[in-house]
């Protein structure tokens, strides 16, 4: 039921004009939207009204070339970011650290919900969470953290050297110089070669699901949540 309401609310929000959205953005600037971070913004479709006390989210399409970065997956395997992102599945990506108390618990909760809402299609979407505090977040700590959020087999957490984590953050324009400065950003890419859809703010699981659904990748899952 709540899924239906959220989807309806999301659809309404999409109807907001770009102008209205940008006005809402300005009104909500104190809540964390950085105008400079959106110079690459190609289309802003969504912005919840601050009076609704819902997260203020902006959506943009951006091409991010992914550099060669070596990371360590939560199972201890050395991997490259490119290989992990380009395994053929749609990707949903965020940045977290395990001792974070403000932003990350909610970001991870949203991923957990997304997994749940994907239902039977869960393993056809790759959820990727990269640590911004890689020296504290060892593979073991990441596994423990993943367990807290009931991460399934298609949701992996990544660590690595400080340089690798920083390079990954820079590659997606989320680097703020310090883990405590990070802001909630979620990136979705439905198919290799497509631009990334960037959500600044706490994109809800329904928004992410809609994004995945919009490309027809996980139609079965979305239709099941509508019932």
């Amino acid at each position, binding site marked *: 039921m709540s899924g239906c309401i959220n989807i309806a609310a999301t659809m309404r929000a999409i109807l907001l004009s770009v102008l209205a959205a940008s006005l809402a953005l300005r009104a909500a600037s104190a809540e*964390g*939207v950085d105008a400079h971070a959106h110079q690459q913004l190609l289309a802003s479709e969504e912005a919840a009204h601050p009076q609704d*006390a819902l997260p203020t989210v902006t959506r943009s399409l951006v091409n991010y070339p992914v550099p060669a970065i070596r990371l360590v997956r939560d199972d201890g395997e050395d991997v490259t970011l490119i290989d992990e992102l380009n395994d053929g599945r749609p990707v949903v990506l965020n940045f977290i650290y395990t*001792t974070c*108390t403000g932003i990350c618990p909610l970001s991870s909760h949203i991923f957990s919900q997304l997994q749940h809402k994907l239902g039977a299609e869960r393993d056809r979407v790759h959820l990727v969470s990269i640590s911004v*505090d890689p*020296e504290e977040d060892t593979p073991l700590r990441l596994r423990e953290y993943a367990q807290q959020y009931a991460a399934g087999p298609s949701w992996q957490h990544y660590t690595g*050297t400080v340089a690798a984590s920083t390079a990954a953050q820079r590659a997606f324009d989320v680097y703020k110089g310090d883990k*405590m*400065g990070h802001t909630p950003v979620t990136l979705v890419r439905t198919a290799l070669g497509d631009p990334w859809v960037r959500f600044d703010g706490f994109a809800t699981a329904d928004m992410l699901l809609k994004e995945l659904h919009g490309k027809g990748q996980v139609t079965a899952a979305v239709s099941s949540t509508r019932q």
Partner: protein
Amino acid sequence: MLACVLLAAGAWGRLKPLSEPSLNTAESLYRQGVLPDGKSLRGERQGGEPIEGQAAACANCHRRSGFGVEEGRIVIPPITGKYLFRGSSTDARQMAHPGSEALSPQRSRYSSETLARAIREGIDPDGRKLDYLMPRFALDDATMALLIGYLKQLSTHPAPGALTDILQFATIVTPDVDPVKRDAMLDVLNHFFGNKNAFYRGDDPPLQRERRIHFRVLRRWQLHVWELSGPPETWEAQLHKRFKLEPVFAVISGIGAKTWEPVHRFCESESLPCLLPNVDLPVVAEKDFYSVYFSRGVLLEADVIAHRLRNDAGHASPRRVVQVFRPGDLGAAAAQALAAALAGQGATVTMHELKSRQPARELSAAAREASGADALVLWLRPEDLKVLPAGVALPKSVFVSGLMGGLEKAPLPPSWRDAARMTYPFDLPAQRVIRMNYPLGWFRIQHIAVVDERIQTDTYLACSILAEAAGTMLDNFVPDYLIERVEVELSHRIINGYYPRLGLAPGQRFASKGAYVVRFPDPTGTRVVTDGDWIVP
């Protein structure tokens, strides 16, 4: 609903200070998200997203002090009674929470009733909705009264050692410390405190009347040196006694040798911040709050060696490892930690205790025993390393504790230098040279003789970190808040002496997390080169 509010208003109108048991119950609710009946606190964000238990606890975002925090562009406002029950004001005399205060929207003062509404329904006293991040909690009246009572008293108690014109600190010296090292540390502390107080102008009017001016600069810092005596079992009692006689706001730096555990326990039991002591065997206790260390010391070295042994064996476990240490020294705990790390993987770990003051023969026996093993690990001080025997067949890997052995100055005999791999939980000398210009320059200006570079640099760092953290507290001298400021600010530092970087976050208590393994490329001298990347085990 109206009835409920009226009833509640009646109840809260009579709110009295919480009794001790109620305070403990309220604290569990505030810090751990445990309701008075023992069940988990549950909340919901707008849109129906649930949040439960520890994740829902107030302290999780608003911190133990209740002073809030800034994360990215998200401002978690303070929620102490002092802040909530008066309006957000532009009156500078009311300014007590820097940053948070300035960025919070203007609002009217809360009453107990409007605060209950905010917690239940997410509406502030002016009828505006609270931020999306703040969950709503359907607390019953009794629990609400308990929570509001807790917030009213939170962070209001005068902190020990924080007086209107003076901040008292202590440093702790255990009796097993080399007096040269103790004096080296005290020299830095005394100069730092003297320097700090050089800016104090005692004849100025009491500027705390005009709170627009940061009157922290006018508080003099006073240092008490708590030198312990006798066996470790008596230290805790000695410390409690000293603390009663000389209440201090925090313990800064300090120096220990074989054990620091009694000091750690004392700080925890007195809720006393204990910042960055010179100890190579800290206490690892994840739930403890008040002690912050530079690193896990020899325990970190043990994990680095375990990591390295596994990697060298192609992610398999080494078959046989021989460890040598002196009973009663740090190496005993480190050897236990390494044995535990290798346990369960089928490795046979032999512990070889050095007992003799003339250990050449024992060392020869240990080396012979290790000749067929995968690794020999030496948790030894320079005087023992110096007499390692020549002409013995060494195993494939020989690891030496850098912290115990004296880093690049370790007096390894020439025949051991080729095989030896040393754990080195710092940047290498060549890499840290620019960063070290700052403390070394300061020592020169202060005419401080550098007799133990690492201890003196770490002491200088500890003082600088304390000064920075205290500087952002304004007059919010609450011990928990000092720790929270260090958690937030530490990773912003660039000048970190021996360490490539320092960083904490909520709950993290070890600021540097990794180590190099180095080797000695020359038959003599102090040049070391890395043998692989920085390892974070």
